[in-house]
């Protein structure tokens, strides 16, 4: 029987192999005196290609067609590939690589080839569990890793019929200079030494292909002609010089230069033009067609046997459809932005050459159209598509074809004659001011408690109606403004969690002792944003819209931190962040100015200026911050942010590249306004001490040296053991900003921004295959410790009064307040162990939208943090029901705390996507309650096609708002569940149409908010809520 099975398997394998081999066409590349010629099954083959992709409006880079239901994939391919075929296209280049079965399907059914493309570290990589943002091609270990991953790809695809050729990278030479993943101005040849390492790796990759597949050519994907001399030295194995070409109508002497220096044929792996006219501020599909007309004519003229270079093999037009997500990446996905993002004079649709005249969202030769409920849409061909259909009808290799003949044929194809075929996309016909997004929220809520709760045992029904409407103004490509208005009808007053955007707290007319009151705001500004470009500067204005900080631009003390917290500011309806940033251009390059009432949540109204200048390997950054007033406490909303005293801060930082390492050194000068201010200091007494308290109590004054701070940080971000070490000293009042940056990996243990401390941190991330083990340690100590509580004593006999001592607060709304305090800068010796298993390098496990993006079959991390806190701290600020703030008079006693979190992401069983977490921890309240809380819980989020199930269970944990931890209010059990269905797969952080039901249940005891059985403290209560909802996004 075993022999029979073996023979059957062998026969099947032979049949399959034979079938594949029979279907794989012969692809050869020939060079002769006439130039170079690609042949498929012996026939000359010009590559008439397009960079193809699929993504419905409202999705972004995280959307993958290949993870959708098979029926949708078939529907898309059977609609789009015939269109491509009818347009004369014979090859596609795809960034979201199709699985082999779909490449074969596209080829066998429609005769269209696909290129297989490995980015080879262009956008960073995770090697041995360590994320490396910028690949170091000189590092032997990284080279081995990249080649190993590439070899897996070659082995996976080499037997797939329909694979045209192998592509190496994607303009990786630009990656040597660019800092982000998006398009920037072209950098030129700035670093020939690093380029040599890059191109030698490309050559090794090409030779690797030859070992496994001698049937297909290998092409480099270079950015323009940069480093041609270096490439010439490392061309072994390369068959084709692929280049992403954006030189406008003509590439000039490019073919001649490549032929002379490298001697291999040329393929445009990207080229084309955007179809948005920066000068007129309108869609211009005719202009796009004119560029493509000229570009293809040149390709034809430079093809084999025409008397020129003869080395043009064809090209891939960039791109098939528009991509509406490219500006904003995660925001404005349903809006077709017209703001220019980079400048490129060869396209000359500008009034000034420095203008950002390139519109990244407008490169399609077809326009996007709205999709149906399954995510299916039909792209609308633009003028260029119809024109190319006729151009591709010209056979460049027909007998007797000459340059003159090509010119005549192209002259007969007039782009303007195809304009009528394109009726114009919906986007093209839109006015300068338009409604760009509409979200309707209709919810019905039922809730009830038991008799031991303040809610009571009666079932309460209520409903909420709300809407968000986005208006977009784009009078020109230099100005983009968006105003998002919220409209609220009835608001349910029976929700278990009563604080949410539509139900804000009012502080007007409140007096001490008032219960929380809500106000009905029928219409309000939800968000607003302005982006404008000027010859000398770019402007970004924002109101409740998140923004990046300057953490990675030399801001060593985090004076302008990043500000992304939409969910939190929505809950408390906080008007933050609010301000504007002006970034200098041309002569003012390096200058930035931020100003506004609340640049980040909790910030005082301020102006912050920055200047950075690079001098060789050293970058010098100077920042000055000037607070204009103290933030109004009612503008902050939550106790998590407290108004800080008005101050003035200046920093000077130097960042130096030391080979693979980066060294940052900086100095801080902050809050000179506090010099001379008095503060209370307590020290353990050798005797009875002050009032018999055991402490001696002193009054001291802030001195000028208390305004100074210094910091040094050494970072080695790459390698098997990436590490950092840093230390800082910050004088009593030398407060810096909150650290929102990420160092190496997803550590949660970070330096406190507060002054009055000396600290040191060090961490190392060790890669062991797909596993990363990352220990991290912190030690910090306040220069002046916290104050204990010492009650005042009045002696009527002697008529003396011993002034009481309290935990300090800096909040000016409290008397007395002091110039500094010990809070998150309390004495701490902490250790963290972060272990991550993530086998997919391209998607970082620690990104906020990992549910959308993580594509690993299974990825997980566990993070354990232990904090040894030998002393207590000063006073936190709390918020009363009526919004008034106060300082707790004391703090919980010194106690160690710990937290452990396990996160799991799984995409192994497509189309099921799963993200879950489990946590446990022992922590203290933020107020003065000494009860230590040991809490547990977990969450699970499962997406299956368009269905989403999300649930959370918390045991003995604080409630959902900040005040729960302030007052140490816990629930024995809290459960949340949400099941919904939408037209598209659920995406975190976007507006989508979804129908669903969500439920909430919690048990209450004497520590819970809303528990009302003081006569029977041992008795618990419970509450539940069920809400059905329809969120309709249009």
């Amino acid at each position: 029987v075993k022999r029979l099975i073996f023979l059957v398997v062998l026969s099947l394998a032979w049949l399959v192999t034979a079938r594949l081999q029979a279907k794989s066409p012969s692809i050869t590349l020939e060079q002769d005196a006439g130039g170079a010629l690609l042949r498929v099954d012996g026939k000359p083959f010009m590559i008439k290609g397009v960079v193809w992709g699929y993504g419905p409006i409202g999705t972004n880079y995280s959307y993958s067609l290949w993870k959708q239901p098979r029926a949708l994939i078939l529907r898309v391919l059977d609609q789009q590939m015939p269109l491509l075929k009818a347009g004369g296209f014979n090859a596609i280049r795809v960034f979201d690589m199709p699985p082999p079965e779909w490449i074969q399907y596209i080829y066998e059914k429609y005769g269209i080839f696909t290129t297989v493309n490995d980015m080879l570290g262009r956008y960073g990589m995770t090697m041995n569990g360590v994320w490396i943002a910028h690949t170091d091609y000189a590092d032997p270990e990284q080279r081995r890793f990249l080649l190993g991953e590439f070899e897996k790809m070659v082995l996976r695809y080499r037997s797939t019929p329909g694979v045209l050729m192998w592509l190496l990278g994607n303009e990786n030479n630009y990656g040597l200079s660019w800092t982000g993943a998006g398009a920037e101005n072209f950098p030129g040849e700035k670093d020939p030494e690093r380029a040599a390492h890059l191109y030698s790796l490309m050559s090794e990759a090409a030779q690797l292909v030859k070992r496994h597949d001698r049937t297909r050519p290998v092409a480099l994907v270079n950015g323009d002609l940069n480093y041609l001399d270096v490439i010439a030295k490392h061309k072994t194995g390369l068959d084709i010089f692929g280049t992403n070409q954006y030189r406008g109508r003509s590439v000039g002497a490019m073919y001649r230069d490549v032929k002379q220096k490298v001697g291999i044929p040329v393929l445009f792996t990207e080229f084309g033009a955007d179809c948005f006219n920066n000068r007129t501020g309108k869609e211009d599909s005719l202009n796009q067609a004119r560029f493509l007309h000229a570009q293809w004519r040149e390709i034809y003229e430079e093809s084999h046997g025409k008397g020129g270079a003869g080395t043009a093999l064809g090209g891939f037009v960039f791109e098939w459809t528009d991509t509406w997500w490219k500006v904003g990446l995660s925001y404005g996905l349903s809006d077709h932005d017209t703001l220019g993002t980079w400048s490129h004079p060869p396209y000359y649709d500008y009034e000034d050459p420095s203008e950002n005249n390139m519109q990244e969202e407008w490169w399609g030769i077809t326009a996007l159209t709205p999709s149906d409920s399954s995510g299916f849409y039909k792209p609308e061909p633009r003028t260029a598509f119809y024109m190319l259909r006729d151009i591709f009808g010209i056979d460049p290799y027909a007998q007797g074809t000459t340059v003159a003949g090509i010119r005549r044929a192209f002259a007969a194809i007039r782009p303007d004659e195809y304009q009528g075929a394109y009726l114009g996309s919906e986007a093209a016909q839109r006015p300068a001011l338009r409604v760009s997004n509409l979200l309707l929220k209709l919810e019905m809520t039922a809730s009830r408690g038991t008799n031991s709760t303040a809610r009571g045992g009666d079932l309460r029904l209520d409903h909420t109606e709300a809407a968000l409407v986005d208006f977009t103004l784009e009078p020109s490509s230099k100005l983009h403004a968006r105003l998002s208005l919220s409209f609220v009808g009835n608001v349910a007053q029976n929700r278990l969690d009563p604080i949410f955007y539509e139900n804000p707290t009012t502080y007007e007319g409140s007096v001490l002792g008032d219960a929380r009151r809500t106000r009905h705001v029928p219409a309000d500004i939800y968000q607003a944003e302005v982006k404008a470009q000027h010859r000398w500067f770019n402007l970004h204005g924002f109101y409740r819209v998140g923004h990046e900080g300057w953490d990675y631009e030399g801001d060593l003390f985090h004076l302008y931190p990043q500000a992304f917290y939409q969910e939190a500011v929505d809950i408390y309806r906080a008007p933050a962040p609010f301000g504007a940033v002006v970034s200098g251009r041309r002569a003012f390059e390096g200058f930035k100015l931020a100003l506004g009432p609340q640049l980040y949540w909790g910030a005082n109204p301020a102006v912050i200026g920055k200047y950075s200048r690079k001098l060789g390997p050293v970058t010098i950054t100077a920042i000055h911050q000037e607070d204009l007033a103290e933030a109004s406490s009612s503008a902050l909303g939550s106790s998590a942010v407290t108004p800080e005293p008005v101050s003035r801060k200046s920093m000077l930082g130097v960042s130096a590249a030391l080979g693979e390492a980066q060294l940052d050194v900086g100095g801080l000068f902050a809050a000179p306004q506090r010099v001379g201010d008095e503060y209370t200091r307590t020290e353990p007494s050798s005797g009875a001490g002050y009032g018999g308290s055991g402490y001696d109590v002193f009054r001291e004054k802030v001195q000028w040296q208390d305004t100074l701070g210094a910091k040094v940080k050494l970072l080695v971000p790459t390698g098997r053991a990436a590490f950092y070490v840093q230390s800082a000293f910050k004088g009593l009042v030398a407060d810096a900003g909150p650290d929102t940056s990420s160092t190496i990996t997803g550590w949660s243990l970070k330096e406190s921004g507060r002054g009055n401390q000396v600290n040191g941190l060090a961490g190392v991330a060790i890669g062991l295959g797909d596993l990363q083990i990352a220990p991290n340690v912190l030690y910090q100590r306040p220069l002046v410790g916290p104050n204990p509580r010492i009650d005042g004593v009045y002696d009527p006999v002697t008529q003396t009064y011993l002034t009481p001592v309290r935990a300090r607060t800096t909040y000016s709304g409290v008397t007395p307040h002091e110039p500094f305090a010990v809070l998150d800068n309390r004495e701490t010796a902490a250790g963290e162990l972060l272990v991550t298993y993530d086998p997919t390098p391209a998607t970082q496990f620690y990104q906020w939208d990992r549910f959308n993006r993580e594509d690993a079959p299974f990825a997980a991390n566990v993070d354990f943090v232990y904090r040894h806190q030998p002393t207590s701290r000063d006073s936190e600020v709390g918020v009363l029901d009526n919004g008034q703030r106060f300082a707790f008079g004391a703090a919980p006693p010194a106690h160690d705390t710990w937290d452990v979190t396990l996160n799991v992401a799984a995409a192994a069983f497509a189309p099921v996507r799963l993200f879950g977490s489990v946590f446990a921890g022992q922590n203290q309240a933020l107020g003065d309650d000494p009860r230590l809380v040991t809490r547990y819980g977990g969450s699970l989020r499962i997406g299956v096609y368009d269905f989403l199930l999300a649930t959370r269970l918390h045991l003995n944990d604080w409630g959902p708002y900040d005040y729960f931890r302030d007052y140490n209010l816990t629930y024995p059990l809290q459960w949340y569940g949400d099941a919904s269905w939408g037209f598209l797969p659920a995406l975190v952080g976007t507006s989508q149409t979804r129908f669903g039901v969500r439920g909430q249940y919690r048990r209450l005891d004497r520590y819970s908010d809303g528990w009302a059985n003081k006569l029977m403290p041992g008795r618990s209560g419970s509450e539940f809520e069920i809400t059905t909802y329809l969120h309709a996004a249009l």
Partner: protein
Amino acid sequence: MSHSRMFRHLLLVAAASLTACGSRDREPVQAIDLNAVAFHVFSPDLGVHPSTSVLRDPNNPFTNVPIDELNNGTPEAPGDKWQIDLAAPAPAAFYAWATALTGAPGGENQYYTATKLQKIYTDGLVTTDELESVRELAIAAFSAQLVHFPQDYNRDAQGNPQWDYATGSLKAIRELGGVAPAGWVLVVDADGQERAVNF
């Protein structure tokens, strides 16, 4: 630069930084001698809500005392202001009440602040030059009680209303020869008691 050498440099920077917080002038906090507390008219609205000028008054010994210590308490351990009110000299008691008033505005704190000003005036605890100013301050303080906290009552330890501050304030204004805010008059109720009413 080797990593170990770099680390040594980091430690040196930290150590050098620590020296910056060395010895400094300090003053031990001593018990306040309430007999030595003198009253002066620091500002024309001293102790009159919503003014907080008393917190800047150099004569005020309570500027560093937490308001809750002065103001809050329990029936068993009332706030310090009550103990001070009972036995301390009027100037010290004034500063205790006036300080509490800034952080906890209310009829109780305003009324007792005013009564201490009245006592300073009637007992002549200031120089002759300042006496008239103190009288005006006392009138202003009682008037502030009527204007800002007209509905407030004196309460017992259980929180039950005992008597209204408005009547006391209005009577005091008359005793001091002042003019009450518009609309306030004394009427006799059904029990034959005088009561302040605002028309």
